[in-house]
């Protein structure tokens, strides 16, 4: 797969209270065609600054951001025909109905079949029945959905979604995630910034964790889990954890043992060791109730990386 978005050594500093603050510090990554790429990080990490650079609103101090092989700083108008963007914090102009605003955007993108496009984009967010309503009067959730409709109008090859589920109720957020799945199947490349780790885990092919303007880790969720949590963990509920601990202690396959009331966690070097250890403990008289393998959650991965980096 080819890179459709390429970010190379982007740095950007702002002055805050007379002091220079590095919003982006030599950021580099690629997004492949058809990929959903998640950008995760705390507030002020630099996610929105990066989106601004990709949209051409902000000129970086150094480095290059490219989309479709074109420079985001100097070839914005050509790039913008093939991409779109929406933010969970965007606003909507007063005085227009949904239909009028979308018609305006159709003209900005010089699109044919305006009526059909408006209908399809409103259907995608279940807003068809609000076609004649003024989106500025909508609740924040409906407003978010309208802005997503706007972002779908030109059938973009690249879609930048800046915290799109902010302010959405559970049902709308689920619908949006379904929509992202459908867009992904269609081959749309998506850059998603989010605080919602479950959402990132569910939707993203790869993620980048950003902190203090620096990317501290990039990869698939599983790759990052493997790097951060290189052990296979068995969680065993039993009546005699001390006996089981004694049995396993000092074994070559076992890296670490954590004991608690009626429970023992065994950290193994690799997945291959699981079978041998299971065979060993099944013969021991330790009152085993259940054995589970523990999959580290993105939440713990995120916390670990945000504290220490990779």
């Amino acid at each position, binding site marked *: 797969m080819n890179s459709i978005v390429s970010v190379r050594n982007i740095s950007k500093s702002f002055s805050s209270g007379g002091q220079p603050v590095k919003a982006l510090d030599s950021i580099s990554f690629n997004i492949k065609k058809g990929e959903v790429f998640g950008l995760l990080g705390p507030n002020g990490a630099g996610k*929105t600054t990066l989106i601004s650079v990709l949209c051409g609103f902000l000129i970086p101090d150094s480095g290059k951001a490219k989309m479709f092989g074109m420079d985001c700083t100097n070839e914005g108008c050509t790039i913008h025909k093939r991409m779109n963007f929406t*933010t969970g*914090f965007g*606003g909507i102009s*007063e005085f227009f109905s949904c239909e009028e605003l979308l018609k305006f955007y159709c003209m*900005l993108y010089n699109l044919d079949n305006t009526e059909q496009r408006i209908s399809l984009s409103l259907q995608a967010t279940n807003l068809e029945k609000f076609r004649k309503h003024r989106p500025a009067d909508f609740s924040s959730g409906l407003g978010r959905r309208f802005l997503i409709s706007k972002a779908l109008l030109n059938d973009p090859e690249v879609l930048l979604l*800046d915290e799109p589920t902010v302010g959405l109720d559970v049902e709308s957020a689920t619908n949006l995630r379904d929509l992202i799945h459908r867009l992904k199947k269609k081959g749309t490349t998506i850059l998603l910034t989010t605080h919602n780790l479950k959402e990132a885990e569910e939707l993203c092919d790869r993620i980048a964790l950003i902190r203090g303007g620096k990317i501290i880790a990039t990869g698939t969720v599983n790759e990052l889990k493997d790097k951060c949590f290189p052990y296979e963990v068995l969680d065993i509920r039993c009546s005699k954890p001390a006996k089981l601990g004694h049995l396993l202690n000092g074994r070559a396959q076992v890296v670490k043992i954590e004991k608690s009331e009626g429970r023992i966690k065994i950290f193994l070097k690799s997945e291959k060791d699981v079978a041998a250890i299971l065979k060993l403990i099944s013969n021991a008289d330790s009152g085993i109730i259940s054995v589970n393998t523990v999959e580290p959650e993105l939440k713990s991965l995120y916390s670990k990386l945000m504290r220490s980096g990779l």
Partner: protein
Amino acid sequence: MKDFISHVIAVLYRNLIWSYRSPFRLLDVTLWPLWMVFMLSVFLSVVDADPSYLALIIVSVAGWRAIFFVGFETTVMVLEEHWHDALPDILVSPISALQLALGGALTGVLKTIAVVIMFLAVGYLAFGIELADFATFLIALFFLMLAGFSFGFVLFGMAAVFDKRNVFTLSFMLPEVIGVASGPYYNIADVFPPCMVSVLNTFPTTHAFNLIKSIFGITQPDYFMLVITSMVWLCLAIVLNRTLYDFGRRMGTLTKVG
């Protein structure tokens, strides 16, 4: 070219809906200009002024409005969309800054046409005034609108850098100040000191108003200076807009996402 036209028409479409539905903006082309022209013309008719001077007032105020409408409309859409947090959605579309400004200017041209028709109708119906040299008036009007665009385009660039509330105030105030200082219905040499007159002679608006006044035999037109100053102002506006716009993109003041 098809994209260019579509983008400019998109802005015009948006602005016309906005002007029609926003009470404040609708008054721009109805009550306020009527109030302005009546304030001056009724006063002149009460003091038994020469009817030709009454006609001058009416067409000059129309020209003055032309500067304001085109200048203001060139800038104001960016400011309005900024206040609705919708500017990023527009800037991420394929429209360029020039196309945004031209769409706004075209809105200003339509507003000017509406107000000129209204003024001429008021002049004819209320005071029995007919304009003798309509062609010269139209030429002057064209150059006043071009000057308005030059102002507006610089203000558009300023909106990318400076506090947008201040730019909004300037976009109201500057065209009015420049319009009235350029001698719409008086001779600038009779009012201002020579040093100020020299400065005002570098304004295309001064020469455009001279053209209007020449219809009534008050001044001599200087077409050469009119064209030269207009071109210089336009070129300066393009350079300043480009510089300010890119400076805003560098400083992060053009627009804020989220």
